[in-house]
């Protein structure tokens, strides 16, 4: 009886260890398991990413274009394609027909602009003005740092050293 209990205990221990090992494998961040070990937020397979908020109402202003192009040119094509997304923020009237038309204009303008300037990240229209407040607060870039389990914000133009920092987060 005692032997049976001991054998069952051994099996349970092994099973628990196997389960813990499997869970550790599943939960560990893809590349940073050691350095991020113990951090509560990172999850397995999660990669850092970045949203860039583009104010389409002032898009045309020369320096705004420069800041946006400087950002995209600092990011390697693959990083842009895989980790960066644009949010196109625009104002307009409450008239649904006018809003739909404006959205079409913004979409066409962005598609042409990104093609002409080799911008590789895709973008989505902020139909419900969800990001207008962030833009007004001077936030131009949101970075989701998977390794640290943190979200960072940056204005656009990104301050000195910021582009390198964002790139480091996205590449890690």
């Amino acid at each position, binding site marked *: 009886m005692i032997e049976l209990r001991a054998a069952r205990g051994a099996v349970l221990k092994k099973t628990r260890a196997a389960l813990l090992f499997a869970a550790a494998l599943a939960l560990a961040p893809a590349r940073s398991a050691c350095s991020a070990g113990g951090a509560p937020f990172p999850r397995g397979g999660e990669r850092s990413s970045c949203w860039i908020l583009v104010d389409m109402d002032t898009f*045309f202003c*020369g320096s705004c*274009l420069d800041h946006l192009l400087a950002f995209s040119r600092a990011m390697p094509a693959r990083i842009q394609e895989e980790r960066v997304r644009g949010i196109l923020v625009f104002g307009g009237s409450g008239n649904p027909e006018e809003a739909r038309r404006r959205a*079409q*204009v913004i979409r*066409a*303008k962005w598609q*042409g*602009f990104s093609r*002409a300037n080799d911008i590789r990240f895709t973008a989505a229209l902020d139909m419900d003005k969800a990001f207008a407040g962030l833009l007004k607060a001077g936030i131009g870039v949101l970075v989701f740092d998977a390794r640290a389990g943190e979200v960072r914000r940056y204005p656009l133009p990104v301050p000195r050293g910021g582009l390198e920092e964002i790139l480091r987060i996205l590449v890690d």
Partner: protein
Amino acid sequence: MNIRRSTAFALFVLAVLGPARAGTGKVSLQEVLAIGGLRDAALLQWTGVTTDAAGNIFVLDALDFSLKKFGPDGRLLKKAGRKGQGPGEFMAPRLLAGSGSRLYATDQNVFGIYEYDSDLRFLRTIPCPALVLALRALPDGKLAAAVVGMPSPAKLLVMDGQGRLLSEFPLSDSRDAGLLMDSAGFDLDAQGQFYIAYLFRDRVEKRTRDGRPLWGKSFLGQKTAATTSVQNLLLPKETCFKDVAVDAFGHVFVLGGKLSKNPSRDVYILNADGVLLTTLTLPEPSHCLYIDGRNFLYARADEGLTLKKYRILYD
């Protein structure tokens, strides 16, 4: 007898004045061509436009930093330029003017005027002592430019094709007008006299070739543009007028800005004496007006994705 005489006199007056009044009543537009559009990436955000005698249409595009040539049918024939600061490159292309086989373009923050041939080959940069706000190419190869005045008042310069200054006059009689408050657009009539529309002041003026004022008028109830503080500088933020163009009959088309009833759509049509003849409302807001040598009017649509060409119809 008196009634007969009165009727005869009235008919005589109508017969004499009738033809002279033609073209000063209602004015409307008939769209004849649209370049670009929602499903066509031909234009992204056009800024300057001019045409040549063959009917080709030349356009600057701020979002792909280019100068484009379209045929009379609206087909894209050629594109030149890219982002940069080298010859033939743009950082922020803005104004375009043409005369004969030459095109003249400006880059917003560059002290100079780029010269091209009609095949869009960059030829050279013509020096200019200040940033250009408005530009016209004169038939005799001269250039007229309204330039920013900081701190002095803005000026209207006439230069030869090499950039040598031939004449100049200030656009404001006050040095206290405020930063950029004397910014203006302008056009010339067949006699070389200037029509000037101020961007941030409710004022349209006619001046002689040497800058002597002939008349000055307000059309917005003397509204004043609101200002905003940018890095401790007080800058205007609302436009009174955006552009001015003279048609083949000497009518002056002034495009109203944000302070007009239909912002960036109302066009005030004046005679050569500054009398308001009628107003016309563009189908969509525009940042500029251009009237070519064949009396077609060009304006913006779809926030710069589309350039529309209209025939001007006079009742």
